[in-house]
């Protein structure tokens, strides 16, 4: 299971990482988010050690959601060296998630 991350951990875990980091912005009441979630879990296992994966619950961490201008969920943001490398809105397939992360590996 991909780890949930809080606002105060974000900088050290995501922005300071030397690997690509995929962050899944989601909420419990969002059906498509719950549809995407198992696919993100699966890719995180496939790419273990090569990339990092976190989830941000936009209800619990509204500051992060606002900071990254999230207006639609699920949103996946791929970070590389502390900056946004790519962003994807809506449900995508497991293969597409993997390709999305691998392009920055």
């Amino acid at each position, binding site marked *: 299971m991909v780890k949930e991350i809080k606002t105060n951990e974000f900088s050290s875990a995501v922005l300071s990482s030397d690997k690509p980091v995929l962050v899944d912005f989601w909420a419990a009441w969002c*059906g498509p988010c719950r549809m995407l979630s*198992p696919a993100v879990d699966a890719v995180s296992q496939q790419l273990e050690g090569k990339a990092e994966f976190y989830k941000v619950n936009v209800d619990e961490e509204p500051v992060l959601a606002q900071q990254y201008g999230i207006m639609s969920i699920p949103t996946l943001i791929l970070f590389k060296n502390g900056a946004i490398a790519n*962003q994807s809105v809506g*449900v995508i397939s*497991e*293969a597409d998630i993997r390709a999305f992360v691998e392009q920055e590996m």
Partner: protein
Amino acid sequence: MNDLIIAGSGPAGLSAAVYASNAMLDFVVIEKFPMSGGQILNTYDINNYPGFEQIDGFSLGQNFRKHAEKAGARFVNDEIKSIERTNGGYSVICGKNRYETKTIIYALGAAPRKLGVKGEAELSGRGVSYLATCDGNFFRGRPVAIIGGGDVALEDALYLANICSEVYLIHRRNEFRGAKYLQEKVIKNERIRILYNTQVEEILGENKVESVRLNNGQTLYVDGVFIAVGSQANSSLVEEFCELDRGFIKADESCVTSADGIFAAGDVRTKRLRHICTAVADGANAVYSVEEYLKKINTQ
């Protein structure tokens, strides 16, 4: 070779899976995501599916799925890339895998239709949304516009009226298409400003939605634009085999299409009402038609 492949695991596909299990057909369900449900996952509140006074789409989808699994259905997680005709039926081709089958129940549903105006694609996820229940919360206390006049547009307007500062409902005709009780609620709701006979010509904004330009020359300053202008069938995989009507696969209640061995169930086929209960009815009818078809080809 399988008797049947069910493509899609929304209400139509899952209902077909239950009926196909009961019919003891040799079949498999191919679904793109390991979480069934289709478009109903987007619905927060369902109050017109008999037997459930009120349930959310996610839970109902999971119930359908559990029922199909218990009945004995086998699921494969894969994305169908193409379908080819073979000697005994069809080949369903996913990435590396190929599935041979005598028949297909094609239940890949529909997706929200795009409005097709300038700014829509560029600002998608940046204020342009097709899903009020998921994205509405990001516009709490801010002005939004909803475009459309069917059930979804009316439901969206009512939902957003509870959380947004101003709600404009923009409809191109002079009356709504959606259910009467929803129309009444919308018209009575003082927080919803209805603009009949109006069309959006462009969605404007630098990095996020700032306004919409209307065909009467007026500009509405809104932070969010929710588009609910109907659905578009996911029929591309069978367009070379089946006759279509505006993208929907031509089929009546029997789900029989113009292509031998392909049966269309749920939102993807031509029909009047695209609801959960009409989709599950299709699942049952489609399996009945598959059984008749298999009987016919097996005696030939």
